[in-house]
């Protein structure tokens, strides 16, 4: 027993040394904050109702002036890539700990803190716009926190009929007479979860984004902040599609109200890229503060 006490003392002493070095110059891990700057080109978006004078107005490539009253999107599947190419996944299979609803109306939601990121130099960030199909099932038992956050009355990011999450929800107005614009995106894929070979119908609206950091993020004694710009000018004037909002019907270039998979992919590709020639969509890294 005496010996045991001795050992215990040694262990405790050892722990003290470890924690001591933790407090020092080189912690094993630290936070990384992702700060989302939602813009029209270079202007941070100010939301507003139909006749708002303060709302940020934007003009599309097709010449349609528009502004938003609501702007939300889901980020998940976040991975940081070290300078040597190693990928550090951040709770990629846990929506409660690794997914967020970015809501332009809620300032706090614009900064998402990744905790306990291993100390290292990072050169790239990857994340998903939306939720991967295998997790996109509105599973309240598995992810009660994210289910509740996304489903809150002031958030409405459940896509009930598709039993998945809304990936983006944009409400706003277009043209000089302020006609309503309402664009919701989400997946309608059916099949066996996680087995893409069995996806027999529907659209996968999840988009994987890869962004090179403008400056390497050095996680260690500092907790870097990565500012990601989401330029919603791309929604209508993207790399993939130039969209003209027009009356409903199957021949319209794009309807101003998208609440189904019909016509949706044009918008999804513009803001989230097409997964092949464009893996950035509307996103870019604005700066990295170490």
């Amino acid at each position, binding site marked *: 027993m005496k010996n045991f006490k001795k050992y215990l003392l040694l262990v405790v002493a050892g722990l003290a040394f470890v924690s001591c070095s933790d407090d020092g110059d080189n912690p094993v891990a630290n936070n990384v904050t992702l700060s989302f700057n939602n813009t029209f080109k270079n202007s941070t978006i100010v939301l507003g109702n139909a006749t708002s004078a303060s709302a940020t107005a934007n003009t599309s490539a097709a010449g349609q002036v528009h502004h938003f009253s609501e702007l939300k999107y889901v980020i998940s599947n976040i991975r940081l890539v070290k300078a040597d190419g190693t990928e550090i996944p951040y709770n990629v299979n846990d929506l409660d700990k690794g997914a967020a609803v970015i809501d332009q109306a809620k300032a706090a939601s614009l900064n998402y803190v990744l905790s306990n990121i291993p100390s290292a130099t990072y050169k790239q960030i990857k994340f998903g716009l939306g939720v991967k199909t295998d997790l996109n099932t*509105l599973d*309240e*038992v598995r992810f*009660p926190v994210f*289910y509740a956050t996304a*489903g809150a009355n002031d958030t409405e990011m*459940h896509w*009930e*009929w*598709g*039993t998945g999450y809304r990936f983006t929800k944009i409400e706003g107005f277009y043209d000089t007479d302020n006609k309503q614009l*309402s664009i919701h995106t989400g997946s*309608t894929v*059916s*099949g066996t979860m996680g087995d893409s070979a069995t996806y*027999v*119908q*529907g*659209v996968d609206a999840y988009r994987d984004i890869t962004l090179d950091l403008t400056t390497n993020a050095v996680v260690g004694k500092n907790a870097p902040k990565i500012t990601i710009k989401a330029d919603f000018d791309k929604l209508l004037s993207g790399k993939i599609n130039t969209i003209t909002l027009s009356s*409903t019907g*199957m*021949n319209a270039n794009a*309807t101003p*109200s*998208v*609440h*189904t*998979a*019909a*016509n*949706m*992919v044009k918008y999804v590709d513009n803001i989230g890229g097409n997964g092949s020639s464009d893996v950035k969509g509307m996103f870019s890294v604005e700066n990295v503060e170490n």
Partner: protein
Amino acid sequence: MKKLIGILLLSLWFVSCSSEESDRVTIDNPEISMEIPAGFPEVNVSFTTNKPTQYGVELGAKLFSDKRFSANNTVSCASCHIPTSAFADHNPQAIGIENRVGLRNTPSLQNLAFLQFYNWDGNKLQLENQPLVPIITHEEMDSSILEVIGKIQGDATYKDLFDKAFGDENITPERIYKSIAQFEYTLISANSKYDKVKRNEAAFAETEAKGYAVFQQKCVSCHSTELFTDQSFRNIGFPINTDTNEAGRARVTGNMEDYMRFRVPSLRNVALTAPYGSFGQFASLEAVLDYFDKGVLDAENLDAIFKKNGNKISLSTTEKVQLIAFLNTLTDEQFLKKQ
């Protein structure tokens, strides 16, 4: 120290002992033998992995009519899927809690084990994946599955039924979905006058027989098989639901070729399920037939059969009467009485 270990071991023994004690005689929960009616198509694969059992069905039936599935305890599955109306209702569009109006007309529920697509747009391929939709939809029950479980888990009858159906008292979302689907799989309607005629147990009246002939000439290319649907999706030029949430089959596929295409509905028990159309555009069968006869809306993806026939199905007044007489023979009194 030895004493401590002794106590520990002893308590472990008690634990294992008591768990053995709760291992009572396994409850007999036999599969329900379901007679597949002659000429019915193949079952959905999901049915083969969730075959109805005695207590699974009993549980599903109870859940189906439990109003606690809705946020304010006013709406159950059976509120819209009214058993005596072939599990449809009589509103143009379904009405959920607080009189909220849904997007579409409530479809009847029968012979679901033989369908490969569910709902007007076929967005669900397995019946087990469907119950969550009305539970969480704002215009239907506006609840959540954990809210539902919270309300029913103290109920002794449910505890007993979950135990008998699944081997223990745990109420899980999957068990709820499976038992409701099991109940729905047992809703087989194949004993109408039409069926009896087919089996040489009855004979059509003259008008009915003529109506059947008209049906075979002008309707059967879509309302085919013993289910009276070929389970395809078609745009047949019905008046359009301008709700932005409606795109027909394209809502799911994103393919504009599917815009305003809907699943061909079964005609079994059709006399009981007015109004008709994806959002109840037609008050009666007469109104549907009159519309077909006058001509439907044109569309780029209008069904080829309509395009070939000048966007209409020509029907004389007599033919309409005969057709409706035939459609009435698809009413299955025994199926309705059972409910």
